[in-house]
C-alpha cells in the first residue's frame, strides 16, 4: 500500500505506523497549506469494544524542510492522553455521544500540539485538545459530522488542527499487485498465468485511519524558496517494561529518548524501492541520509520485473540500462525548472532526500483537478505535494514503467503500456473542506474486515 504495514517491524505496531502523508495548498483557503499524516492502517469500522485511538506512548511529528538540507526546520509535535471515565464498565460509550464533551464517551482522548523551529526551540501551541470518538453507529454516534466538526481546533497564528478517525483516502488494488505483480489491464498477458481480465478491487475500501490534519499559513513553513519538503514520523521511547503488580492493571513504564520507528515522505518509497532487510532501518533514518537508498531509486527492482512478468509488453523499458534520473528527480531532489514547464519546479537542491515536495507558489486546481497530477497535466497535484484524491499508485507505477524517463532522457520512447498501466480504481469519499478526508465508516454499516 502507500506505506501501510510497509516494513516488517512497524507492521506489528499499527499505532505508530504512518500510512499516508498529504501536503497541498488548501483549495478553499489558498493562503494556507494543509498537512495530513495518517496512522493506524486498515481500521475495521466494527472495532468494539476497543475502538482505535492514537498511542499515548507515541510521539507523532510532521516535519518540514525549507532549505533543502533534508533536515527539519519546522516540526509539529503531537502527544496524546487517554482517560477512562468509568473504569468499571467494559463499554467504550455508555449512551449516545452527541457532543465530544459528553461523559457517555468512556475513553476520551486529548492531545497537545507543539512547534519546534530551526533553532530547536519548542513552543507549545495548545494542550487538552479533544479528539472525536470513533464512528460507532447510529445509536452511539448519531451525528458524527457534528462530533468531527467540534474537533476542529483553532491554534495561535491562524492555524487549525484536527486529530481523529477519518475514512481511508488511499486506494489500491493490493490483492492483485502483490499476487506476483498482477496488473489488471494486462493480467491476461502475465507470464505465470493468463487470467481473465477483471476490474480492479479496492483493498482499502471502507476502512478507516487515524488522521492528524494541520492547516497553517504558507509563511509558517517557507523560508525564501516557495518549495518545502514534508515527511511524517512516529517515535517511541527506547525501553518499555510491562510491570504487572498483583491484583491491579498492567503498568507500563516507558524510559529513554524517543527513537524514530516510522517515517513517510513520498508514497510507496519504502514499500517498493527499499529492500526488505532495510525497510525498518529506513524508518529510523533522516531524509538527509537517503543517498544510501538511492540505488533502489536509480535501479528499481520493479522496473526490472515488469518486462519479465509481462513478456513483450515493456521491450523499451527492458532495454533501458541507465540509472533512473527521472525517479531520482521526482523522489529525491525534486524536479528542476524547465523539465515539466519553464516555471514548474519542486527542486530543493542536490541533497538526495525522500520528502514530499510542495511548491507553495503553484495555486490549487479548484476546477476538475486531475487525479494523475502532473502526469495528467495538473501541476497542483502529485508529485507537487499530494492531494487526498491523487492516484499516487498509478502515477508512480507509470513512472517506474518508464513514462517519465523522457523528462530527463528525450532519446527514450516509453512503451505504450507505460501510459495505460493502472490498478483501474477511482475513489471519491472526500470532503471539499478541512480535513478533506471523508467521514469515517461506522461499524453499523460496514462489517469488520
Amino acid at each position: 500500500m502507500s506505506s501501510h504495514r510497509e516494513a516488517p517491524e512497524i507492521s506489528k505496531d499499527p499505532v505508530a505506523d504512518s500510512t499516508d502523508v498529504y501536503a497541498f495548498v488548501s483549495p478553499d483557503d489558498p493562503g494556507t497549506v494543509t498537512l495530513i499524516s495518517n496512522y493506524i492502517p486498515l481500521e475495521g469500522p466494527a472495532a468494539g469494544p476497543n475502538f482505535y485511538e492514537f498511542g499515548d506512548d507515541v510521539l507523532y511529528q510532521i516535519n518540514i524542510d525549507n532549505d533543502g538540507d533534508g533536515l527539519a526546520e519546522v516540526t509539529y509535535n503531537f502527544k496524546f492522553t487517554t482517560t477512562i471515565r468509568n473504569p468499571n464498565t467494559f463499554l467504550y460509550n455508555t449512551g449516545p455521544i452527541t457532543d465530544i464533551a459528553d461523559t457517555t464517551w468512556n475513553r476520551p482522548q486529548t492531545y497537545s500540539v507543539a512547534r519546534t523551529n530551526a533553532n530547536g526551540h519548542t513552543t507549545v501551541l495548545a494542550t487538552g485538545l479533544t479528539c472525536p470518538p470513533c464512528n460507532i453507529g447510529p445509536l452511539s454516534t448519531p451525528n458524527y459530522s457534528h462530533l468531527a466538526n467540534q474537533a476542529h481546533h483553532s491554534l495561535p497564528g491562524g492555524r487549525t488542527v484536527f486529530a481523529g478517525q477519518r475514512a481511508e483516502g488511499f486506494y489500491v488494488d493490493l490483492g492483485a499487485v502483490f499476487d506476483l505483480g498482477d496488473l489488471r489491464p494486462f493480467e491476461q498477458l502475465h507470464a505465470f498465468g493468463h487470467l481473465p481480465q477483471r476490474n480492479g478491487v479496492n483493498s482499502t475500501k471502507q476502512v478507516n485511519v487515524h488522521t492528524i490534519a494541520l492547516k497553517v499559513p504558507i509563511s509558517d513553513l517557507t523560508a525564501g524558496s516557495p518549495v518545502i519538503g514534508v515527511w511524517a514520523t512516529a517515535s517511541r521511547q527506547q525501553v518499555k517494561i510491562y510491570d504487572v503488580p498483583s491484583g491491579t492493571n498492567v503498568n507500563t513504564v516507558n524510559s529513554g529518548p524517543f527513537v524514530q520507528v516510522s517515517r513517510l515522505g513520498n508514497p510507496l518509497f519504502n514499500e517498493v524501492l527499499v529492500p526488505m532487510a532495510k525497510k525498518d532501518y529506513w524508518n529510523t533514518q533522516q531524509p538527509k541520509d537517503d543517498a544510501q537508498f538511492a540505488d533502489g531509486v536509480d535501479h528499481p527492482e520493479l522496473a526490472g520485473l515488469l518486462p519479465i512478468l509481462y513478456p513483450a509488453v515493456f521491450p523499451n523499458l527492458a532495454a533501458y540500462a541507465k540509472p533512473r534520473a527521472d525517479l531520482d528527480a521526482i523522489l529525491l531532489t525534486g524536479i528542476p525548472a524547465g523539465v515539466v514547464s519553464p516555471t514548474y519546479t519542486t527542486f530543493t537542491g542536490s541533497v538526495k532526500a525522500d520528502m514530499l515536495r510542495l511548491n507553495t507558489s503553484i495555486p490549487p486546481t479548484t476546477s476538475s483537478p486531475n487525479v494523475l497530477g502532473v502526469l495528467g497535466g495538473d501541476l497542483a497535484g502529485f508529485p507537487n505535494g499530494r492531494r487526498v484524491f491523487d492516484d499516487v499508485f498509478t502515477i508512480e507505477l507509470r513512472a517506474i514503467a518508464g513514462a517519465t524517463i523522457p523528462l530527463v532522457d528525450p532519446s527514450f520512447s516509453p512503451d505504450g503500456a507505460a501510459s495505460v498501466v493502472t490498478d483501474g480504481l477511482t475513489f471519491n469519499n472526500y470532503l471539499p473542506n478541512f480535513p478533506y478526508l471523508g467521514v469515517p465508516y461506522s461499524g453499523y454499516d460496514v462489517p469488520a474486515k
Partner: protein
Amino acid sequence: MPLLAEVAASPAATEAATAGGEIPQGFQMSADVVAHVKDLGTGEINLFVGERQIQLNDPALARAIVRATR
C-alpha cells in the same frame, strides 16, 4: 533487562553510586531507572530514565548486575 533498583544493594553498585556523589537520605526517584548491560567486557551500561539515556563504562558495576541475574 534488570531494573537497576534490583541490584542497587550490591556492593559494586553502592561503590559506583558513591563515586558519582552521595544520594541523600530519603531521595525520591522522579522516574523508574532502567539499566541495559550492553557489553560485559567494557562495562558499557546504558541507563534510561525519563526521556534521557546515560551511558556508563563501569566493568565492576556491569559484573555486579550480571552476577545478580545468575
